[in-house]
């Protein structure tokens, strides 16, 4: 993200209305490598390809803000790998982390990883350190510390079904587990900030909070998200594209000031639930419109979304989730052009 884009992002988060509105997208391994003509595994394992694919996206769509920007990631395996989760790699599929905990009781023996040494985390840092000079020569900086959220990591360690059952059957153990994942996250975010002083934002991704009731979110979600986001940074960005009506009113209490959410709710609904405190990044259907539609479909969906939203402050038009696989260049161009035309 270049300086102008960062300043625009911060301005929108602070409530300034920009005309035209900026368009922003989360981009990562599900879309970027295949769009650039590479396999997912090559993208993960080749630093040059990682850099060039990111630069290609930035140069193809210079007016779009790509978030978090140069996201050094290994799909869902990044954080679980630090806990010892085996990672499964296919040539062109997302990697998958195998479970570490076979029963809730095994939480008792779980140790907090060291982000400086464990799993793939040193690879994440080194890749960015190796590339940082070139990223900066291209006019960009690393702005975000990024991680999966505390509940998301917990489900990768023990399985989603098992975790979501155990919050009912073994709540104390699950609080213990979330305490460990959160302590780890705090260290991991601090370490990323230490390595890259240009970081002034945190992005956490956690769809699991969308699967629980308001009461369970207040017990098992909010305290841990709040602690994970508790750092002196300007942008606190949260991604959850599961249904999140139940937790939405609590998200400002976690410190979040930028939210990417799914297609289950409208922009106006989310604004009503979260108040004026959170900037919204959304939410044209990513799969059915942005990936599967034509440019005309994208134009229609963006127009309908903007016409239906009765506000322009704290709004960054995007899709409801990360950029999905298979989105063609012309659909992104149609999205950006429509936003620019309608919000002048």
């Amino acid at each position, binding site marked *: 993200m270049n300086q102008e884009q960062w300043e625009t992002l911060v301005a929108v988060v602070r409530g300034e209305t920009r005309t035209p509105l900026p368009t922003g997208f989360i981009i990562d391994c599900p879309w970027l490598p295949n769009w650039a003509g590479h396999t997912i595994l090559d993208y993960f394992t080749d630093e040059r390809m990682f850099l060039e694919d990111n630069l290609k996206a930035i140069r193809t769509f210079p007016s779009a803000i790509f978030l978090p920007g140069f996201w050094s990631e290994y799909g869902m395996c990044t954080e679980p790998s630090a806990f010892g989760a085996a990672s499964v790699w*296919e040539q062109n*599929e997302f990697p998958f982390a195998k479970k570490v905990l076979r029963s809730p009781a095994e939480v008792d023996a779980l140790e907090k990883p060291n982000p400086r040494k464990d799993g793939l985390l040193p690879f994440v840092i080194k890749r960015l350190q190796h590339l940082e000079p070139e990223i900066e020569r291209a006019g960009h900086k690393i702005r975000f510390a990024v991680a999966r959220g505390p509940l998301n990591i917990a489900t990768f360690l023990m*399985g989603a079904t098992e975790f*979501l059952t155990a919050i009912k059957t073994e709540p104390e153990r699950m609080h213990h587990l979330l305490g460990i994942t959160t302590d780890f996250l705090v260290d991991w975010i601090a370490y990323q900030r230490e390595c890259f002083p240009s970081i002034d934002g945190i992005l956490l991704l956690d769809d699991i909070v969308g699967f629980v009731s308001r009461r369970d979110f207040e017990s098992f979600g909010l305290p841990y998200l709040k602690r994970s986001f508790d750092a002196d940074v300007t942008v606190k960005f949260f991604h959850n594209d599961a249904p999140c*009506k139940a937790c939405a009113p609590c998200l400002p209490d976690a410190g979040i000031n930028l939210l990417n959410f799914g297609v*289950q709710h409208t922009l106006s609904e989310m604004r009503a639930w979260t108040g004026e405190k959170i900037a919204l990044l959304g939410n044209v259907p990513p799969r059915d419109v942005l990936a599967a539609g034509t440019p005309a479909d994208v134009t229609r969906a963006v127009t309908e979304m903007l016409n239906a939203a009765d506000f322009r402050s704290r709004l960054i038009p995007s899709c409801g989730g990360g950029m999905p696989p298979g989105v063609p260049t012309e659909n992104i161009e149609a999205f950006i052009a429509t936003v620019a035309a309608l919000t002048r």
Partner: protein
Amino acid sequence: MSDVSSLGEAIQNGDAKAAVAAARRALESGADPMSLVSDGISPAMTEMGRQFGDGDCFVPELLMAARATKEVFVILRPLLSQKGTQPVARVVLGTVRGDLHDIGKNLVAALLEGGGFEVTDLGVDVPPERFVAAVEDRKPEIVGLSALLTTTLPAMKATLEALRTAGVRGRVKVMIGGAPVTASYAEAIGADGYAENAGTAVGLARRLIGADAASRAKGEQAT
């Protein structure tokens, strides 16, 4: 409150112990085991599926209800078998090859079982040939395929092709679901139905069976 009503309430509360106790009391007082399914478990799970679809019930509550249902079925299954009671239909269910996600499949399995279906859960990362073998072995009316990853969608198509190649596709209705799945994808690969979420899967399964019955009746009339 009758024991059958208590059973339904205990299931909705996710209280397995109370559900089993209510089921035992109902059986001891002479209730037909099938009535526990049709008047207790099935309405409770149908209601939870409806609430889940509306966003008023959440995954942990549904999982707890599923646990309670499973424990009651431990008591009921042998009794139903003794009486020769047939399930609504048999379903073989699994997450397709390459995909290790199980939560959507587990929710669908729980709701189907609660709805009186007999479910054979093949687990996750199930290759097409295991679906074929299960169709030959379990003789289901329905095969359910689940996927969470866009990259594993082709495995759904491969599974349908394997069923066709093995000559068993005509014996079963195939329903598919999962985050990346759409109705148009279901149509494109030749599946019989698509469930948008776990809450709608039971209704879809019932419609598929109903459609079967209707088409059989039409066929009989035609001959």
